[in-house]
């Protein structure tokens, strides 16, 4: 129902979308003008190549990020961890793993609440493997990663990342469920008499949802923008100064050992999608193979040392080892698959 109060909101939204679209379409021209007209750099030089890369990519990625984070913020206002838990509780495996991986992409999640969420899920009767599918997909398949991949590498790579990220979350969660590792969860977890908790109200007004979107932009873009600019600056440096095909020998598809090496290097590294994708883009441009760099990126985002330390509170070392092993194997498989078929 359209009340009188909704029209100003809708018109403001349309106007903002129009301005955004016009600016976005003209970014390449503005970047050329800034590089060669305003700064007066010589076309074809290394510095000009690096500068043009930065002044084109940085506003482009930030604009995409604002638009998508706003949209995802609105989508997320329909989901809460409590609601997701209710959907997953008592689910059989297989279908439960698929559902958990999908819900992981849209349910608001922060790795600092991985432990309370884990306890909340397990004590409510969500199977262990289904819980893991959620915990793998939630950080790995997120809007920031997808926006950056789409903006810098195109929709095909973004779609591949989405599909294989979900596949890893489903398969790894299912495998962990099959292994029957419940006894490697710290026993106190099952003794917690979990309270019902909040039934946070998801029935917001339209204005409330728009506010959820702008809150998400302030929160997420406000946090990741230095990483984005830093990542694009590193990418610009690689773009302008590292020779073409420089990396073909060490990160190309001919080097079979490059995929496991990329995964092993990625696990202890802690960055977020915003910092890693511009670097990935630049590596690809210098001859690194797509499977190798995607495996590297997935290992950095999905398996991080700080998160493993947090999870140690509820998981025994054996289960953490299995978790890293199973997810790592999935990432390896994705790396080899892409290097083989692309």
């Amino acid at each position, binding site marked *: 129902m359209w009340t009188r109060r909704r029209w100003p909101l809708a018109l403001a939204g349309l106007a903002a979308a129009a301005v955004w679209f016009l600016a976005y379409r003209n970014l390449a021209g503005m970047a050329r003008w800034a590089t060669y007209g305003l700064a007066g750099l010589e076309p074809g030089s290394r510095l000009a190549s690096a500068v043009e890369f930065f002044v084109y990519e940085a506003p482009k990625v930030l604009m995409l990020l604002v638009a998508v984070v706003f949209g995802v913020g609105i989508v997320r206002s329909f989901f809460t961890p409590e609601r997701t838990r209710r959907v997953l509780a008592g689910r059989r495996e297989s279908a439960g793993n698929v559902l958990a991986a999908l819900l992981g992409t849209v349910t608001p999640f*922060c790795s600092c*609440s991985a*432990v309370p969420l884990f*306890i909340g899920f397990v004590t409510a009767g969500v199977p262990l493997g289904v819980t893991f599918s959620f915990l793998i997909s939630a950080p790995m398949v997120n809007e920031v990663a997808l926006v950056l991949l789409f903006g810098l590498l195109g929709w095909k790579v973004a779609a591949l990342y989405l599909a294989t990220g979900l596949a890893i979350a489903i398969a790894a969660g299912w495998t962990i469920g099959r292994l029957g590792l419940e006894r490697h969860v710290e026993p106190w977890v099952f003794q*917690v008499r979990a309270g019902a*908790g*909040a039934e946070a109200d998801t029935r917001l007004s339209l204005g409330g949802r728009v506010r959820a979107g702008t809150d998400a932009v302030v929160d997420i873009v406000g946090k990741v923008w230095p990483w984005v600019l830093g990542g694009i600056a590193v990418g610009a440096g690689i773009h302008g100064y590292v020779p073409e095909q420089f990396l073909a020998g060490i990160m190309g598809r001919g080097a079979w050992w490059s995929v496991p090496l990329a995964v092993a290097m990625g696990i202890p590294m802690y960055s977020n999608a915003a910092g890693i994708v511009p670097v990935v883009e630049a590596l690809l441009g210098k001859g690194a193979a797509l499977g190798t760099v995607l495996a590297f990126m997935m290992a950095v985002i999905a398996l991080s040392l700080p998160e493993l330390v947090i999870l140690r509170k509820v998981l025994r070392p054996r289960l953490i080892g299995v978790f890293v092993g199973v997810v790592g194997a999935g990432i390896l498989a994705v790396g080899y698959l892409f290097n083989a078929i692309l």
Partner: protein
Amino acid sequence: MVITVYGPGCARCHETERVVRNVLAELQSDADLQKVSDYQAMAAAGVMATPAVAIDGVIKLSGRIPKPDEVKAWLA
């Protein structure tokens, strides 16, 4: 009145505590502010996303930082 802030010590949890504390000072409220960072206690209260805020044991918000106006509304 007891206000409980649940959070394991992340930046957003400290920010939540600061927001609540400021509102309490502004309203000159004598409500008791408690901070819970123990995972077992958090789970027992049913908190699944941090930071979370409860008033007299009833969870009012979880998974984000509250706005000062929201805190004022709970205290009224």
